[in-house]
């Protein structure tokens, strides 16, 4: 029996030359310790597993006593669990556990001493704040949970575990606060996660796309964040979060359009600054979508809108340009997109040079060569800057995409095209629901109480109620300071 257990294991692990089989003779009985050193905490292994075993081997022969102690759980200082299923044992071995195989016994014991390589908790790269916590999630989900539990110290913080992917067996945790969340959302996500059948989930967006199945909207219904304080704040609003091992971002849902335009900085700065910055952000996000289309529509179809002096400057600038305004805009926008993409991929040493060249080439030389006009460069640059003002990249990417559609419509149908396109996008946004929450709440439908935290950010003492967009609890009063 025992021999076949060991043989079965060896057969499954055949070909993995990094698996170690450490045999120890205890009281005359051969035992085998199976583990993969690169994913096991070797110090713990030596100290808490191998040394006691060796001590046991050197002590008075007492095989039944040893077995009894093993059974009672008092043989080792660290916890160990009995397992009967061989496939499970192999799974555990390749997941970083050390498996103890005893001659003649049909069961095995395993020790949870997994130790993966991970980086240290560092600053947030993509969601920067000046005042406020700087920590960001890393790839290890245990560390992420510890960062989260550091902030929320309440028993109502629930973490539900799922294991996704046949080959990756990724740990996925659903986190929420009992009593605040909307049960329908949890039920929907759970159903998807339980029924998920894929090879492997490498990034958290894989899961996001499965949950979003059927919703073909370009707008994001999930919010990604790499900051534990954002996750904590969202959980306390009643949202549900998903953490996945291997991804340093968390997923938050439900989401509204306005929440995608908010950043944690708004809450850490003074409320005047926070409100002002939010309004600027909102204005510029609209500009990022509409400005090129508007400019092209106005200069091509409706020159009566532009004040005369500006009009003469633009007309003079456009004198010798060989392309129509629409073509010019498309060329510039596409070039800008290429610059953006190149900037993300470029290795750091070369980065500086390329950005300088890009700026000089596009900005100066193209204008002087008469390929594009100076006002167009200004419009495209302002649009580019405006699109980065959106704190959450997923919404910014959507706007980048839609900007082209609007540009083409504006260039062919003038202001009518822009109006039609904006209205259709607006209709789509109002109709879209992120897990049952209308996307444009609290603008459409208009909920005035929630405006305390939309474009304005009222001081903390006045934010007494949780936003109705997210919370599912009957009592939506936040706790007030005594």
């Amino acid at each position, binding site marked *: 029996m025992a021999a076949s257990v060991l043989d079965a294991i060896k057969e499954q692990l055949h070909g993995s030359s990094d698996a170690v089989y450490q045999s120890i003779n205890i009281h005359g009985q051969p035992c085998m310790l199976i583990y993969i050193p690169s994913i096991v905490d070797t110090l713990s292994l030596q100290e808490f597993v191998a040394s006691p075993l060796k001590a046991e081997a050197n002590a008075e022969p007492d095989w039944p006593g040893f077995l009894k102690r093993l059974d009672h759980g008092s043989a080792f200082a660290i916890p160990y669990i009995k397992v009967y299923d061989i496939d499970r044992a192999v799974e555990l071995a390749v997941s970083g556990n050390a498996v103890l195989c005893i001659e003649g016994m049909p069961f095995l014991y395993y020790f949870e001493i997994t130790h993966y390589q991970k980086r240290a908790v560092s600053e947030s790269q993509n969601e920067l704040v000046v005042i406020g916590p700087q920590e960001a999630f890393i790839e290890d989900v245990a560390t992420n949970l510890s960062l989260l539990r550091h902030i929320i110290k309440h028993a109502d913080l629930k973490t539900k575990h799922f294991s996704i992917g046949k080959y990756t067996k990724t740990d996925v945790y659903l986190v929420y606060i009992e009593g605040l969340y909307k049960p329908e959302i949890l039920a929907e996500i759970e159903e998807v996660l339980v029924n998920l059948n894929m090879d492997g989930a490498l990034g958290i967006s894989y899961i996001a796309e499965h949950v979003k199945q059927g919703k073909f909207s370009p707008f994001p219904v999930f919010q990604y964040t790499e900051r534990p304080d954002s996750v904590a704040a969202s959980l306390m609003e009643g949202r549900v979060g998903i953490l996945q091992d291997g991804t340093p971002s968390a997923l938050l849902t439900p989401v509204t359009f306005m929440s995608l335009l908010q950043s944690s900085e708004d809450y850490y700065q003074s409320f005047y600054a926070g409100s002002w910055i939010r309004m600027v952000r909102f204005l510029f996000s609209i500009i990022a979508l509409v400005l090129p289309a508007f400019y092209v529509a106005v200069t091509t*179809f*409706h020159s*009566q*809108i*532009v*004040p*005369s*002096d500006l009009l003469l400057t633009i007309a003079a600038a456009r004198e010798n340009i060989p392309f129509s305004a629409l073509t010019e805009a498309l060329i510039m926008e596409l070039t800008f997109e290429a610059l953006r993409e190149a900037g993300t991929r470029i290795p750091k040493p070369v980065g500086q040079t390329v950005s300088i060249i890009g700026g000089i080439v596009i900005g100066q030389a193209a204008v002087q060569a008469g390929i594009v006009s100076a006002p167009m460069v200004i419009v495209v640059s302002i649009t580019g800057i405006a699109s980065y003002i959106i704190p959450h990249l997923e919404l910014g990417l959507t706007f980048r995409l839609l900007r082209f559609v609007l540009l083409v419509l504006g260039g062919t*149908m*003038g*202001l*009518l*095209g*822009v*109006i*039609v396109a*904006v*209205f*259709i996008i*607006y*209709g789509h946004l*109002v*109709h879209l629901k992120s897990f049952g929450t*209308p996307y*444009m709440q609290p*603008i*459409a*439908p*208009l*909920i005035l109480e929630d405006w305390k935290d939309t474009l304005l950010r009222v001081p903390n003492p006045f934010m007494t109620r949780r936003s*109705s967009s997210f919370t599912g609890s009957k009592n939506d009063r936040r706790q007030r300071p005594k």
Partner: protein
Amino acid sequence: MRTTNWQIFRFSLVYFNSQTSIFLIPVIVSGSGYQGWISILFGSAMSVVLLFFMIKAGKLKTGDSWIDFGSQFMGKWGHRVLVLLLLCWCVYYTSYDIENFVLFFGSNYMRGTPPLFIQLAIGIVIAYTAAKGAATIIYMADGVFLLLIATTFFSLYLFLPNANFQMLPAFIHYFDPGTTIKDAVTVTSWFAEWVVLLFVAPELKINYSFMKKVLLAEFVLTVLVLAGWALTMLNFGPHLGKDVQYPYLDMVRSSSHDDIMGNLDPILIGIWSASMFIHSSFMIYAASKCALYLTKQKGKKLMVPFLVFCSILIAYLYSRSITRYYSDFNSFLVVILWLVVECIPVYYTMAAFIKSRINKPAS
């Protein structure tokens, strides 16, 4: 679906604002001259009467939409005829909306563009929005509401510099019952589209709180139309006002001379057109509900595009003979027709009343 009664206030305001602000005021200015305000007030009062009937009709059976329970009171075929009438009216009104927009926007900003092009573009927007359902349309009105109020106040502010306040005494010195009554009836037909609100019945309960909010919306709308009319008169006077096709545009354009303010009219028009789209989409939604009732719920997917296509067809035919359009638009026959349709709640209330009377002696 979270829907409240204040939403109805906002929705009604956005819904009624588009047509009345730009198209009703020139009609009153050319018709009544200095007495327009009397026509507006009378018309508003009469439309409130129709509102009461609409509330009564909506309350006949709470929880069920009018389309479903209407046959109980009018008989199967009577109800069918009225539903068909409402359906045709909605489609016809939408074609008016579309053609108005084409003339207004096209003649001012897009000369040379064939009207069919603009009609199709608008038709696509209306079809897309109408297909989304009443709740979405009401939410969209919510979102547009603040923007619309802001632009209304802004545009009223733009009209103040050139307004000649010395004209104000003229408003009380003129009174001619004949034209006043006629124009009051016209105003009523514009204000009293309450019958379409019967279609929000499943989502919202029609009760007294509902009525209060709608009354408030009516009041605010009357104030806005009065203010718009007064400022148009103070800016243009009745003699020039009669001649000008779209006084609103002229007022914005001539408000200042070379800076951005006087040239902002396309932006204001853009925001106004959102209100117009909501108006037409809701009409088509109501029409599609009627049509689906008549075809017994068959053809759900195609109904909205088909109805929009009909509206565009009518608008296109009108755009080919503009004189016919203007004569129809300004004719009194159309006003009477509108009123006949808008009195639909009255018929039902009467029928219910008669029925209850008949049943009483029997029991």
